[in-house]
């Protein structure tokens, strides 16, 4: 005949099981709290990350993309204005060269007139010499006219020298303007290439930020799903603890050698119920 269980033995087992249960409950609570904190931190991090990359990748006012567009538009406008100014200067240089040519032609005409005047003075002096004393005053006038025509010729020569010196200088100006025009055209082409590169980079940046945001959402959803699974595992741990506690109650009642408690008295409500196909299983829900 089997011996009755030793009362001390049950008490010792009971204390030990109680300690295990307390440790288990503590661990379950701590894990649950940590899990919630991890999810909260992950949500916070993803929110911050999305905010930061959103600023970089956005296309609204104040964004990198918008600022680049403004800079490009300003550069384009400046280059256009510069082109207009250069074209104007080129036209002015052409007109100055043309006017200088006209001045040279006018100086040549004046030179011809001065030569004719000198010839006229010479003929006047010959004719005045034939008249003897009567022609003497004409000789004086003819000399003065010759001096005057020589002075005109000298001034004219000076004008011709100056216009001759001015023409190559003006041609140099025109050449510089043309060179500037060519450099501006090169800059326009380069600027277009840089703008295209920047726009490509901006598009890549926007795509990368969109990918980062999507990846953040995906990872967060994964963390939340996994934490949900972990919470279910923690609940299962708690359910195991509850059941152990009930078994412990039964063991204690046996150890006390008292009347064994009925399972329903300590919460095993379904123990005496017949099996049913309509029963719900773990994780299932029914709303009435």
């Amino acid at each position, binding site marked *: 005949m089997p011996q009755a269980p030793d009362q001390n033995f049950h008490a010792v087992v009971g204390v030990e099981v109680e300690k295990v249960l307390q440790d288990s409950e503590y661990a379950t609570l701590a894990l649950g709290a940590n899990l919630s904190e991890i999810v909260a931190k992950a949500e916070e991090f993803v929110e911050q990350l999305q905010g930061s990359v959103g600023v970089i990748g956005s296309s609204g006012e104040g964004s990198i993309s918008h600022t680049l567009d403004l800079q490009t538009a300003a550069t384009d406008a400046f280059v256009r204005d510069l082109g207009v100014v250069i074209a104007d200067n080129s036209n002015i240089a052409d007109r100055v060269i043309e006017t200088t040519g006209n001045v040279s032609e006018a100086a040549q005409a004046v030179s011809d007139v001065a030569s004719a005047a000198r010839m006229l003075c010479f003929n006047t002096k010959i004719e005045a010499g034939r008249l003897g004393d009567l022609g003497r005053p004409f000789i004086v006038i003819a000399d003065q006219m010759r001096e005057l025509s020589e002075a005109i010729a000298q001034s004219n020569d000076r004008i011709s020298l100056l216009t001759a010196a001015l023409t190559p200088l003006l041609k140099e100006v025109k050449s510089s303007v043309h060179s500037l025009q060519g450099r501006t055209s090169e800059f326009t082409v380069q600027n277009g290439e840089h703008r295209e590169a920047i726009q490509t980079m901006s598009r890549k940046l926007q795509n990368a930020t969109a990918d980062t945001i999507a990846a953040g959402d995906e990872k967060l959803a994964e963390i939340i799903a996994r934490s949900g699974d972990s919470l279910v595992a923690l609940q299962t741990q708690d359910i195991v603890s509850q059941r152990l506690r*009930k078994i412990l109650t039964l063991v204690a009642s046996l150890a006390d050698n008292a009347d064994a408690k009925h399972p329903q008295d300590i*919460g095993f*409500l*379904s123990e005496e119920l017949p099996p049913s196909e309509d029963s*719900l299983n773990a*994780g299932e829900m029914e*709303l009435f």
Partner: protein
Amino acid sequence: MSKIIIVDDSATMRSQVRQALAAGNFQLVEAVDGQDGLDKVNADPDISVMILDVNMPRMNGIELAEALSKNGRVAKGLKIVMLTTEGHADLIQRAKAAGAKGWIVKPFKPDLLLAAVQKMAA
């Protein structure tokens, strides 16, 4: 803001129900067993939803649901959702007869519980 009472003798389970409902903008109250739950619901007419365990000391969840049905609180609009490891059809029928509006078997999925409580509180 709806006031919800969580009646469960497990601190772990109450904590996990709290976490599951955190996104729902509810005011949450806790009770540690059936008798505590009955006292708190009787003392607070603003409680509109009860999440109720079955196996608890002093008074089990089915008895609590029946008491609230008898004292007229269920008829006044208190919605009871049973949250338990039990899933036997006879127990479900008893809870339903006492006016419970739902039955969820542990371990529960947090989003499922939140959806059920949001529906009850609406």
